[in-house]
């Protein structure tokens, strides 16, 4: 591989506190050789071909902590190859995949298969999660230690919640012993039973059962209470309401935990469901504008640590149904960064904070050396034209499933190039 020289870029690398105009040199092995304002035309060999980015941005390759891939079992929705193509188009170079597959990722034998498929078919870094409990049943915990030794970096039941408090205690104890990361989808099932959207005026109007905000808050409060005595690595996968935000603000000083939010909950609210738009049936559900604003404020205040795409590819057949029958979730990995940039363009959140929630923060939680541009590291990064206007059209999406929640939305800012190990794998 030839050495690459990028100059005149706005580089944001939160881990190394870089936020400046400068250049980037990638060496022959695809590693970062030099970065920052020191890299400019004055000190680069004139015979080399310099790539002038003309003020475009360079971010570390994004780390998306919540991605569903259909493999194994639902390859018709998304496989590793299509996922990685879609991710690259969105500047994402590392993904954490959920274990909600068929079979479920709950056993070391499946992890081997997964790692092999991920390596052979994917062009990006795949970090698989295993489930917390066998077959996601919420009964017997999985072998955290053995699974970790095979390369599992975190444990979650993905779409499901550990309801049983005693089991949760035991899971947390094991996680503490083995230094495992637990990611909880917070939802009290009895309270959310049959629920399809946020509980409130829109649900009443549409005649749909609601999922109350307290269903999330109660699980968060329970887990944070357990965390007072069991100090394991604990992450709340997604927050959706102002009441949950209030809870984590109050507890942040007392116990150690991290939390995430889906870009959907930061960009949309329940009104967007309109006349039964099943593509906006999400989990956790879209809530009120007040909830959305509270989540945005929490990202701004760095109370919420990460933003995820919650990429959940669903084929059209699963969505062309009545609202109650339709599948939950939206495809979103390709639009994650552009939607996040909306928060920057409208003045809600600083650009550096946004990049942090998408790169160094998730990497730190996961304890992986990704999401940064440190010298000597794999050159995983994306080049972004943060002002470029474009319109989301499902036919242009690369993901195998086209269930975007933001069809027709006008966005500002687009990834133009994505590199993994110094190799350009996506170009607009």
């Amino acid at each position, binding site marked *: 591989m030839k050495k690459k020289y990028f100059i005149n870029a706005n580089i944001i690398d939160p881990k190394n506190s870089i936020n400046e105009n400068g250049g980037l040199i990638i060496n022959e092995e695809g590693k970062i050789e030099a970065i920052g304002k020191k890299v400019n035309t004055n000190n680069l060999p004139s015979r080399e071909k310099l790539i002038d980015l003309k003020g475009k941005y360079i971010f570390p390759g994004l780390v998306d902590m919540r991605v569903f891939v259909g493999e194994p079992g639902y390859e018709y929705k998304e496989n590793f190859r299509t996922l990685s193509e879609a991710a690259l188009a969105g500047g994402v170079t590392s993904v954490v995949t959920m274990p909600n597959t068929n079979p479920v990722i709950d056993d070391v034998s499946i992890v081997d298969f997964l790692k092999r498929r991920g390596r052979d078919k994917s062009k990006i870094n795949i970090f698989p999660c295993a489930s917390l409990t066998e077959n996601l049943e919420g009964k017997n915990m999985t072998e955290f230690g053995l699974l970790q030794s095979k390369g599992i970096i975190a444990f979650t039941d993905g779409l499901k919640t550990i309801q049983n408090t005693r089991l949760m205690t035991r899971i947390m104890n094991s996680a503490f012993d083995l230094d495992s990361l637990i990611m909880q989808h917070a939802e009290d099932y009895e309270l959310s039973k049959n629920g399809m959207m946020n509980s409130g005026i829109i649900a009443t109007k549409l*005649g749909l059962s609601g999922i109350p905000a307290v269903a999330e808050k109660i699980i968060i409060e329970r887990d944070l209470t357990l965390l007072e005595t069991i100090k394991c690595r604990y992450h709340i996968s997604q927050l959706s309401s102002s009441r949950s935000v209030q809870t984590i603000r109050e507890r942040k000083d007392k116990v150690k935990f991290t939390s995430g939010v889906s870009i959907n909950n930061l960009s949309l609210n329940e009104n967007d469901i309109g006349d039964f738009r099943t593509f906006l049936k999400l989990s956790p559900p879209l809530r009120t504008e007040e909830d959305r604003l509270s989540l945005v404020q929490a990202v701004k205040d760095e109370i919420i640590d990460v933003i995820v795409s919650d990429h959940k590819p669903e084929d059209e057949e699963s969505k062309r*149904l009545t609202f*109650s029958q339709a599948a939950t979730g939206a495809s979103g990995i390709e639009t994650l960064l552009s939607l996040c940039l909306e928060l920057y363009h409208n003045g809600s959140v600083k650009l550096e904070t946004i990049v942090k929630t998408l790169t160094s923060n998730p990497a730190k939680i996961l304890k992986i050396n990704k999401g940064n541009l440190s010298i000597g590291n794999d050159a995983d990064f994306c080049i972004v034209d943060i002002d470029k206007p474009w319109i989301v059209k499902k036919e242009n999406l690369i993901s195998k499933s086209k269930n975007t929640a933001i069809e027709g939305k006008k966005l500002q800012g687009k990834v133009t190039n994505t590199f993994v190990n110094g190799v350009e794998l996506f170009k607009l």
Partner: protein
Amino acid sequence: MAVKLNKAIKISQKHLLGIQDLSINDVLLILDEAQAFIKLNRSKNKKIDILRGKTQINLFFEPSTRTQSSFELAGKRLGADVMSMNIGNSAIKKGETLIDTAMTLNAMHPDIIVIRHQDSGACNLLSQKVNCAVLNAGDGRREHPTQALLDALTIIDRKKKIEGLKIAICGDILHSRVARSNIYLLNMLGAEVNIIAPTNLMPKAIDKFGVNTFTDMKKGVKDCDIVMMLRLQNERMTSSFLASNREYYEYYGLTPDKLEYAKDDALIMHPGPMNRGIEIDTKLADDINKSVIKEQVELGVAVRMACLKLFCE
């Protein structure tokens, strides 16, 4: 709201999915048209042929006695060819989706599809996929527009007006599409609406729909002109909403002592089917001086004839 009939001759909507979508002119047009059919239905020769050559398909995914037979009779009296689909035997049971069924039926060129479905919004989905008019005969807990229209017609028939009346709707509001449609319609026609239910059966944010809410039935029915009772929908209740039926009857069942609080000439309504002795005292339900439950059924046919006629045009 002043209720004046502008001379509308055509309905503004292609489909009848809910009262929410109708303008006041649409409502008045339907009610006016239905008035004429009341007379026809009471005469000896009940059949006319204004829908001759038209095909009406009744697609009922939920069991129904009165609504289905009412729609069937309404179509037949207007001369339409009426087909009622028995979903129990159809491809739906074999895994076909609602949209596929819709496409199949659409290929047979119906002029009108009447649908009842257990899922809210099913009629909206159907209406997006077929070329003909879709009439909602009840979708989940969202709307049941023809029931609200027949209730309004019954009230007008007895009280000669709706504007200014005080109307109590009592019972399982949470699961009730009838309540939702009636709230929209009665509000539109200028009534004052009181909603009475235990908190467990009260939908979230219902007070934002322009109604007064009560958990005490006596306060809720006070000085009302109409007391509309709803059926306890036990089949939709997934967990304990109520302690027991007998306690419910004690606090929310319509009994003579609770009716005392309403106006002396108050009328009792119920969309049926009734749970006698649970939500309504059986003698009150049959009291011909107070109960208009049978009249509701009778006028239901007229309202559905009006809807079929107007939406077929």
